[in-house]
């Protein structure tokens, strides 16, 4: 009987992330579809709470625990993953595409002489075989693929399945890993405070700011200070996540009239992020293709632009409001209270 190893790490609160729970659902239904056995491999400083939180999945549990695994470091994370995989001997390794596993798991393919496919958008059993889907060319086309090499290591992006729920009491078998060669030391995560945080992956709404906010307006002036207040006011009222066009972050980086809280991490698009939110509101952004490919996973889309002929009008959003975003967002913020 073949075995599927679901692999995940604990978060700083000792639990599992949302994408990790979603991936467990996908791994479990794949195992059922293939008639395979499901094993769960966890690593972290202490995995007891995480294991109990998903004990109802019916798998056999394995874990590598060590204080070192409190922090994400490629070499120690991979050593833990390798030890778990060697203890289980799976045909497939299925893991969430967290930044931590996205960094570490491709290396596992070399260590196990397997193959790896990352950032899957779908995984299922088809005609008794595992079949995957993922995007190519920066979210411009989706491919359905399969392969014969084993072990096949895959990571799944958020949105592939519903989050697994089923707590209980897990019986976890300890596995030892070798961390002796690790030369990297974590200095911790530099987080922005909750008030200052503007990238919120789990937010309901994405607000995108474009370079128009820093351009000369109808009165001949530039009003970046007002733009900042409007954007922050909206984020404060809605707890939306903030994204940006490339032009706007490039201006910010080059010392032009800048929106002070924007960095390259806010950039959405071909050379930026492809965030996942149910709704997106674009403001002062032209909606050019290299930007809009980053909206692949945004459900409902609306845009505000003074130009009725901007890119958004070309079938890229559901509603385009032809208006001055300074005036319209002032009103929107007023109504949001």
């Amino acid at each position, binding site marked *: 009987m073949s075995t599927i190893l679901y692999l995940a790490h604990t978060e700083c609160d000792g639990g599992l992330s949302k994408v990790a729970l979603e991936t467990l659902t996908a791994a479990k239904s794949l195992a059922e579809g293939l008639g395979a056995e499901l094993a769960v491999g966890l690593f972290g400083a202490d995995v007891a709470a995480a294991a109990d939180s998903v004990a109802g999945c019916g798998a056999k549990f394995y874990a590598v625990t060590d204080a070192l695994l409190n922090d994400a470091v490629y070499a120690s994370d991979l050593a833990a993953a390798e030890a778990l995989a060697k203890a289980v001997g799976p045909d497939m390794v299925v893991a969430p595409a967290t930044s931590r596993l996205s960094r570490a798991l491709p290396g596992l393919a070399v260590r196990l002489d397997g193959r*790896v496919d990352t950032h899957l958008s779908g995984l299922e059993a088809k005609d008794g075989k595992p079949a995957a889907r993922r995007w*190519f060319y920066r979210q411009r*086309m989706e*491919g359905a693929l399969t392969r014969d090499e084993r072990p096949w290591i895959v990571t799944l992006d958020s949105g592939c399945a519903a989050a697994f729920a089923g707590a209980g009491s897990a019986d976890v078998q300890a596995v030892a890993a070798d961390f002796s060669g690790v030369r990297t030391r974590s200095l911790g*995560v530099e987080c922005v405070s909750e008030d200052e945080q503007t990238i919120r992956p789990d937010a309901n709404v994405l607000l995108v700011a474009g370079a128009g906010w820093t351009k000369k307006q109808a009165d001949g002036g530039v009003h970046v200070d007002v733009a900042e207040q409007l954007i922050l006011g909206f984020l404060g009222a809605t707890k939306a996540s903030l994204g940006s066009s490339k032009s706007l972050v490039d201006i910010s980086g080059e010392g032009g009239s800048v929106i002070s809280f924007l960095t390259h991490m806010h950039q959405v698009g071909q050379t930026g992020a492809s965030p996942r939110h149910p709704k997106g509101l674009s403001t002062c952004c032209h909606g050019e*293709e290299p930007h809009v490919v980053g909206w692949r996973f945004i459900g409902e889309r609306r845009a505000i632009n003074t130009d009725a002929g901007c890119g958004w009008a070309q079938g890229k959003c559901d509603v385009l409001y*032809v208006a001055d975003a300074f005036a*319209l967002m002032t009103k*929107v913020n007023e109504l*949001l209270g």
Partner: protein
Amino acid sequence: MGNVFHIVVCGSIVPDPLQTLTPQVGPTGPVLQNEMMLPAVLDPWAGHALYEAANLAKNNPGSQVWLVALGPKAKLQQVMMAVSQKAPFQLVVADGSASGFTDAFETARVLAATIDGIAGLDKSKLLLFGGWQSASRGSGAVMQMVGERLGVTEQFQGVDKITVGADGSIEVMERVEGGAYLKSVVDGAPAVMGWATGELPEPPNNPQIGMQNMQKNMPALMQAKPADLSGASLRFETVQVPQQRRQTRVVKDAPLEEMAREIVEWLKA
């Protein structure tokens, strides 16, 4: 003595992002329509890695930069005319497909073998740079596998900043979820860095550097050996561009209050 690095940047070409891409079935799997005719650019995140490498080499005298590219050599040559003007580097070419549909493992195997063949490369000084994802496959998996094959097991992905200490240690800032940075320190080379945007703007064109680069790099293009990427069983059932056109409703000449109310109702729904 200062730090001396041997910096190998892995980077190839991708279709210009302004092009419309259409997949079609080729003899051995999916390809892009008119792939060889599409204008190409240096893969953007690999480009950032190259600029960071050049800057690091400039600040650490005695260091060297190689650009290792797996791609079709005719197209590489066109793109290199432009890239050569940006920073000094030694080009090393494996002549093969730069398609997003080739297997990441095979790509890594060819790149690692190509790097292994570089004369004068001191692996104890090696910093293996590349983009943290390509704009073609977007797997974010190749650099890790190249590193593992070369025995480089200290690795970083989504790197935006590195700071080299006097003792050769390197502090690294990597992007993680929620706009935060993971900060780590590695005691020195060798290491793998998959770069995100980094901190440097694209360097201006320098025709003199371009001339020097092309003089030494033309032979590398001429001598490029064909790369065998055929080892994988990866099979595509379909590759499709999704139907993405929406029925856009354009709201024009309506009172601002009305638009604002509609937006707020939609946000709250």
